[in-house]
């Protein structure tokens, strides 16, 4: 029986097989791994070091230069807080601050329990509803700081975000 680790490693081998074996492939390889696994895990990067001969520290350095890569598993739900012009004018910043405080994370991070990703975005494209917060693609319109707890608890299950 193959362990999940072995399966992961063979998926990485498959990805590498699709790219030319040189340094130039690093970014496309990282993109594929993130696509497949959802993020770049320490194990995946260590495997890349082994197979590509580039130090894990260097790979990590390169990857952190690009905002597209993440290094922890994505949360169960993704909360986008819009900071576009319309949302900004209507208090988008306070909404984000409230979210950060309630969730205990800064934008761009995942809550400790793995439930939520909090991201700031430039514009969701529904400025008329500003300020908006989108959770897993569902847009919540004209959000106020007061509404934040109820939005969160809807997704948190039994979590106690009061």
């Amino acid at each position: 029986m193959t362990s999940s680790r072995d399966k992961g490693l063979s998926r990485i081998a498959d990805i590498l097989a699709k790219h030319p074996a040189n340094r130039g492939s690093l970014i496309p390889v990282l993109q594929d791994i993130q696509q497949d696994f959802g993020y770049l895990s320490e194990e995946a990067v260590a495997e890349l070091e082994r197979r590509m001969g580039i130090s894990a520290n260097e790979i990590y350095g390169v990857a952190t230069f690009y905002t597209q890569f993440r290094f922890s598993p994505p949360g169960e739900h993704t909360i986008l807080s819009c900071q576009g012009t319309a949302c900004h004018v209507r208090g988008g910043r306070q909404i984000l601050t409230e979210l950060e405080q309630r969730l205990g994370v800064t934008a761009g991070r995942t809550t400790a329990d793995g439930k939520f990703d909090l991201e700031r975005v430039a514009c969701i494209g529904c400025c008329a509803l500003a300020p908006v917060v989108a959770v897993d693609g569902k847009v919540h319109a004209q959000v106020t700081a007061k509404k934040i707890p109820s939005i969160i608890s809807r997704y948190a299950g039994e979590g106690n975000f009061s």
Partner: protein
Amino acid sequence: MKLTIDGKSVIAKEGQTVLECALNNDISIPHLCTHSQLSAFGACRLCLVEIDGIRGYPTSCTTPAADAMVVRTDTQALQNLRRNILALMMLEHPSACLVCSRRELCEQFRPEAERTGRTTGCHTCSNKEICEVRALSEELGFAELPVPPAYHERPVERSEPFMDRDLNLCILCGRCVRICKHHQGRAVIDFVGRGSQTHIGQAFGNSLLDAGCQFCGACVDVCPTGSLADRYAKWYGRPEAVAESTCIFCDHACALALGTKNGKVTAAQAVDENVPVCVLGRFAVPEFLNGTDRLSTPHMRVGQRLRQIPWEQALEMVAGKLRQFAGDGFALVCDTTSTLEDRHIFKKFTNEVMKSTNYIEIEPDAHGVSRGSLPAGTKAALLTGNFVDLAALKELGLSIVQDCYPTPVSQRADVVLPAAVLAEVEGTILDRSGRKRPLHKACEPPGQAKPEWWIICRLAEAMGAEGFEYESAEAISKELRISNAQLWVDRVEAPPAATDFKLRRTHFRGHRIDEKVRGLRELPVEDPCALEPAQEKHEGAFGILEKHEIAPNVHEIIIQAPEVAKKALPGQFVIAMVDEKSERVPYTLCGWDAQAGTITLVVLEKGQSSRKLILLSAGDKLVHVVGPLGVPLDIELYGTVVLAAGCYGIGGIVPIVEAMKDAGNRVVVVTEARSHYLHYYKKKLQGLCDEFVETTIDGSVGVKGHAIDAIAEKLKAGEKMDCVIAVGCPFMMMVTAQETKPFGVKTLAALNPIMLDGTGMCGACRVTVGNQTKFACVDGPFFDAHLIDWDELRDRRAAYSAQEIHSLGRTEAVVTGHSGGSGCKCLH
């Protein structure tokens, strides 16, 4: 190739860059990211030049020299550009000292950098004496920051062995990243993140150890700033001299360049710096040599105890006793880490003087372990290291140990003679392939310790033997016709332990190296009985309730001390001891609550004792808090009272402001700090006083300059002041005193940064005030600042600082008691 640089016609070699060519011809072009050991990188942009026919300002470090090129390196435009580039860099660097208008006076008053936990300016930076950024800033006449600087508040990384990393000083020149890759063939560190978040780091925030660091120290050696530092060497400053010798921790015998100061080795590096040495060569030598428990005087057993005796007497006595053991009943045991010269003398002494065949020479094993046993029937033994079991001693009528460190065996011996080792001696050794390598004396041995040949020669003479009249190791090597010993400076490959520190030797002459060199305990080792990393735990009655780093390196600590809180008065201080062994350090009382039974201290991490204190966290306890001490300040109605405060003094003046205000005075508070992010307690003080003025050395907020600059401005404008009270570092108080004097304003200074015991016994705090000797701890802390002999005060402080450096000289990771954000908000 021929080119013209600054009007001078110069020759360039094929493949040289414009920068290399200029430097070769003594034409200096500022450069920070370029380093002689590294290829060009083009990151700092300071090496800009003008070249005819090339548009703009190319970087000379990346531009290949070409025939007939005409280069200008020093035009006004270039100078301005460089100054602006440096200024931009300095916006994310603790740069205030660079733009301070009292730079020269500061330098005179305190040439050595102060030892702090967190560097907030050159004056508290271990890199000060050798800083390339500072030198460049002088050269470019850099004197102003365009906008207020930023401080990233990155934690100071001190949890790795041997190296400290404070990335708040990093200018992202990338030298460390490149040299690491070059030395290790694999990056251990790299640029992580992007934009303003970019920093030097390891994958997934792993420790250096987990990222595969070999502690070769190369990154430390090339860093142009104080960002990376050798924890042991950092506070010794620039070495006075560098001597080259051979490392004898193992038989690869790498050549080491040993930096020395005041007769001590303070740092070690590979001579051929392109190939790393192992962690022992790079980091273990100074701490091993400078260990406080080194054997330093001859000792002789008298009954149960070993008593110190002078060399002459020791030699006489040993000679007398040894005579009775001539023949095979005598044995001498050494190992091959002793020099050829020493071993020749050992053997000659054994065979000729003692008439014994039992000269025993041990070859250390792969781990450096040298174990041997004494032949049956041995009655007297001379052991030049920790080689035999304790039990062997029982059979002996006479045991003599000649060694560098005490051991259970030396503690039971009849005579103990202190030996010089490693860089303390001259001589020759053989490396693993039989080549001769020289040892050169780089430093003084501790106390009265002597080279081994010297000890045995003098002993032989004391026994009346002839042929031991050598006065130097050289004389012996001449006789032995040892010639052509050469330092191993053309290494092609690094020793195996430099690529896998598990392969390092663990023992030297029977001593565990990691027992003396504490940083080694944190590295994995092929040795089942490795020592635990040292951790000191202490329990006391004075609990810490809260602790916050309220500004970089400034810690506010609230301590349970009801007896002190009950009696405290403005201007008084306490003496706090973290554990039984720690020094007694005075801290000004910055507040107290008699009802709650608490006191508030503002502590700057400076040196060993305050370090211990700030590494505690809420919930920990201090062993002792004594106080309140000192004469309280006279609180009277003066009229207008001006309080000038800097560093810890900003906290220290709080009770004084309150009391002066209550007494009906108009109270003006002037605080100073190097930069805006170093100010604290602003709201608190604003709420207490009538007028609040902030000053910064770099001008980033409030008045530019020291507190006295704001005060002098007011005095010149004719404002009336009845009393000025300065609380801060001696430099700040001295400057305040000097500049209020012409105005005839009564000025007081709080002299508590200089005490030791706080009861007038130690005399450390002796100051001369108006030709009278006073003790700051019992007569002070407040004195008439115009009468204080500031020069004497400076000298006295300097004398204590040498001691303080020695107590900081350890290589193990600094252990923090921090609970990861719960309670303590420290940046550590």
